[in-house]
């Protein structure tokens, strides 16, 4: 444990009941990344769902835009402790995308342009809990925030909401993604403060 620094309070800790433990409210929208921002022209963009049997389902940008979309307002929580309440997004629900996908798999691994991955149970993508989001706050999703489209899974820490998402791989076994391999939690529930492996 470090020695305490007189007069240092750190980020104002809101005792706001709406925030999960250890979080603080931020007014801006911090950009965290693990690599350069990919630039994907829309006519090259694809989203692919691959099942555990190797079957794949693919959507082009045009096809994604033709699917029924939802406007949602959600709270988001980053493992680095900032939270934003009431963020507005537009996207296609994973329910819609997985509607015709036959699978017995229990787990998913999201893949992004640029190589990022993150794992979560398949059921956490269903029942209105996840979207492929392409607009934020009424505008096209900016590249530094994951545009043209990112995964949005607000009930888990935000590193699970993979930026620049390009597909979901359905798997029988849980397989740790980019940060999970390096100590972050396989599930990541902010309300149980599941930041790191073993939490």
């Amino acid at each position, binding site marked *: 444990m*470090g*020695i*305490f620094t*007189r007069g*240092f309070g750190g980020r104002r*800790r809101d005792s706001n009941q709406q925030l999960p433990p250890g979080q603080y409210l931020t007014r801006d929208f911090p950009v965290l990344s693990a690599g350069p921002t990919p630039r994907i022209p829309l006519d090259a963009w694809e989203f692919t769902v691959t099942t555990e049997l190797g079957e794949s389902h693919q959507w082009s940008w045009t096809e994604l835009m033709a699917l029924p979309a939802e406007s949602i307002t959600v709270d988001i929580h980053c493992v680095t402790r900032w939270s934003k309440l009431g963020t507005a997004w537009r996207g296609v629900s994973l329910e819609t995308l997985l509607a015709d996908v036959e699978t017995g798999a229990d787990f998913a691994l999201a893949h992004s342009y640029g190589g990022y991955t993150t794992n979560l149970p398949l059921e956490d993508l269903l029942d209105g809990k996840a979207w492929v989001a392409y607009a934020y706050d009424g505008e096209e999703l900016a590249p530094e925030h994951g545009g043209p489209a990112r995964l949005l899974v607000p009930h888990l820490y935000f590193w699970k909401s993979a930026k620049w998402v390009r597909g979901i791989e359905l798997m029988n076994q849980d397989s740790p993604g980019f940060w999970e391999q390096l100590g972050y939690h396989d599930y990541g529930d902010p309300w149980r403060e599941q930041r790191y492996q073993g939490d």
Partner: protein
Amino acid sequence: MARAAVSGGLTVRRAWRAARLIERRTETATASTLVLEVPGWPGHLAGQHVDVRLTAPDGYQAARSYSLAAPANGDRVEITVQRVPDGEVSSYLADEARSGDSVELRGPVGGWFVWKPEDNGPVLLVAGGSGVVPLMAMIRSRDGVSFAPFRLIYSVRTPEDQIYHQELRRRATQDGELDVTVIYTRSAPEGEQRPVGRIGADDLVSHGWPADVEPACYVCGPTAFVEAVSDLLVALGHDPAKIKTERFGPSGP
């Protein structure tokens, strides 16, 4: 380096040491030099940095890196902190920390971006904003031990942003082998010939060394500045292997 005994006979290095603030000097409206006393400090090379860690009463910790501003001097360590808007650590260090307060320090670290008095040969230093700090450590460490010709090109927004202004002028006047050029990107002092604007190839040609002199180049400051200057130096014919860079991250507004 303190070691802690861990079960099984394995020792773990204790990286963080207590450092007590003993003096502060205001450098500009937004930057201050902090002099810290660190018992058992092992010494350091010009160009190295330390990580400073603060701990709030609830256990929350924040750490940032700061370049050492002066050469090794027993247990005294100097850092110059530029206040960053909304910076939780820099605001504390630049505005709040008082003599007698303690912080934790890790270092010195960084063995690549260093200049040693044994390094002969001309040196080009190019600083953007607070990037002047490690380069100033290099200039200060030259005192009385090296006559290597140094040229510093220091890019600032306005005259009020110059850190070490008087000291640099004094050194440049007294030391025939030290040239200091300040360039302004937003507003310049009365009588300044060079038009206000970002550093360009002309500045490096006029105030740097020709590439065939093969100077050791050190470039430090905001990331975009460092990238731009490195590219310019390479385009001017400097060997990339002789250009050392330290990126401080995004520049402020």
